[in-house]
């Protein structure tokens, strides 16, 4: 085999690898648009807020994706729906505004595609982030106390402080990162219907 022939095979195979998957994929799912819900007059999936976008980065940097997936499968060949991880399966349109769009590769913890729907109270999510065993004593999820600050309580408690007993008149206040992460987690829900994945 001549060197030019070998070089052609290499370049062609690389072109096919990227173009065949990314370019063809783009024509199929890259031009998806949000769907207008005629009942609520809102677009779905909704456009995320700036805080939610920051939360995406906190989610990635804290390594949550090492243990949690973001993709509900089913109903055939998977128990995801029966486990209550979503009301329908995930489809490409769900990832439309996610930056970066992560799916995950491990389920040491539960899938989080619908966590915003499962844990609606932001305080519960804050409590989980600070110490997961506050809500579930057997949780294997590690605590993230660095996302919170201990501040001296003034004449009255801050509204966003965690309802946990502390020493020395201090209160536990979520940082901006914690608020962003909670905003992101709350944005994760599959409670809207799409033409390709209707709610049952």
């Amino acid at each position: 085999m001549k060197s030019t022939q070998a070089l052609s095979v290499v370049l062609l195979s690389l072109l096919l690898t990227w173009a065949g998957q990314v370019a063809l994929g783009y024509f199929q799912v890259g031009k998806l648009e949000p769907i207008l819900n005629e009942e609520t007059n809102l677009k779905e999936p909704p456009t995320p807020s700036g805080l939610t976008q920051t939360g995406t980065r906190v989610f990635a940097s804290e390594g949550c994706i090492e243990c949690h997936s973001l993709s509900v499968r089913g109903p055939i060949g998977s128990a995801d729906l029966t486990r209550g991880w979503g009301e329908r399966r995930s489809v490409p349109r769900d990832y439309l505004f996610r930056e970066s769009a992560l799916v995950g590769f491990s389920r040491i913890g539960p899938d989080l595609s619908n966590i915003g729907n499962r844990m609606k109270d932001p305080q519960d999510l804050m409590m989980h982030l600070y110490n997961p065993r506050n809500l579930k004593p057997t949780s294997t999820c590690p605590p993230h106390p660095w996302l919170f600050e201990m501040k001296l309580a003034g004449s009255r408690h801050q509204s966003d402080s965690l309802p946990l007993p502390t020493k020395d008149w201090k209160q536990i206040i979520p940082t901006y990162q914690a608020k962003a992460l909670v905003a992101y987690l709350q944005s994760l829900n599959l409670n809207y219907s799409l033409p390709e994945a209707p709610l049952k």
Partner: protein
Amino acid sequence: MTSPLPSFSKASNASVLLITSSAVWGLLAAGLQALSTLQLLLPVLSYIAPIQVMDYGHLSPVVNFLLVYGWITSGLLGVLIILVPRFSGIPFRYGRLLTGGAILWQIGVLSGVTGILGEGGTGIPFLSFLRPVTCIFLVSFLVLGTGITRGLGGSWKSGPLLPRLYLLGALISFPLGLGTAELLLRAGAAPGAIQIIAQLVWASVIQHLWLTPLALVLVFQLIPAMTGRATPSLSLGVLAWTITLCFGGWLSNTLASEGPLPSWLQSAGVVATLLLFVATLGNGNLLQPLLEGKMEEIKRNVALRFMSLGAWSYLAAYGWLAFLALPGVRQTTAFTMTTNTTQALLIFLFWGSILSGSVYALLPVSRNMGWPSHPALTWHFWLTSIGAALMVSGYALAGIFQGLALNDPGVPMGTVASYLRPFLVVILMGQILWWAGQMAFSSLLFSSILKLFPSTAPMAVFPSQSPISTTR
């Protein structure tokens, strides 16, 4: 002891720097990996002393980054810098430039580690580091890769063809793949679900079009040289190379969740995985006659022992991937520790064994040194092999049990985690053994480079060297 060929000695510092750094990164990665497994096994540890940089979410991407970019890539580049000018007969001219490239690569690894630990990873597999690190790697590769390519270009018609073909494929795939992935995934060129496709393509490219071809360069160059036998069928080898190049970038789709991907991509991934396994069998068919009847030599020569372990692990790794691609298996094992099994098979048994064997065979040639006749050689082989085997089997069994439990909605998540514990103990034991083996190798490597112990002469990998084997 023979004196090194002076014209080849200019690249010696770069290769030694890459190989010694690789050993250090390997040790660090193995230590951190054991620590992260310990956290999975005993989650209470995270509650006793919650430290952000030592958190599982930070350690896990650091370990993966260190193993792939620090240990394997750095080490393979180091041995290639020794190998390529010798098989091409064209020495490197600019030794200092190569050393600069090698230093830059280590700066990239160090920046990557500190970036992931400090600011956190990106969550993207094999691209968990910050954007400036990509630039450092690309500049470093420009220097190192250009040096290697120069040796490749001038010698196309002489010597064995297969190592050159795999080297060409790898050298082009890495920079183009990394650049494209950076553009699509972090420069905002890929919207929504296309990012997921791009992540999967990049994961395939770095594993199956960069590291596997690099390892195959060493397999097809060194095993024939060490056994004194020629590769039996060139046309079969070229066919296997073509299949590897054409379909290697499609493999990761197989294991992805079907939700965010068009279904045809996953089907294409399954076909590609099966075809790549056929190519692997073809390569196995070429390697089998080279190693047949050489058991005594394999037992005696630690370099050949590592190379043959790596060669058979290559078959096992792609066989395992083909098994995971089967429809029923794929649905059960998605999102489980079977992903770690694949990683352990590829990183520790296939690429890692080939790297170790190549270092044993090639570093003495470059440095005009031999390995001390020391039990550490044997300890390195057995500890790393048994350690890796424990990791692979532990992850495989854990993954299968995890998959079966996850697909049974009656089993709560807490119970699924408890099912993993016995396997995590086995995995942790394997990681500790592997770390101990790597420690034995590192001590041997540094003592040999510093010439602290009397050593034997280098083995004869190239015709101009004296025929003494690296024995123990």
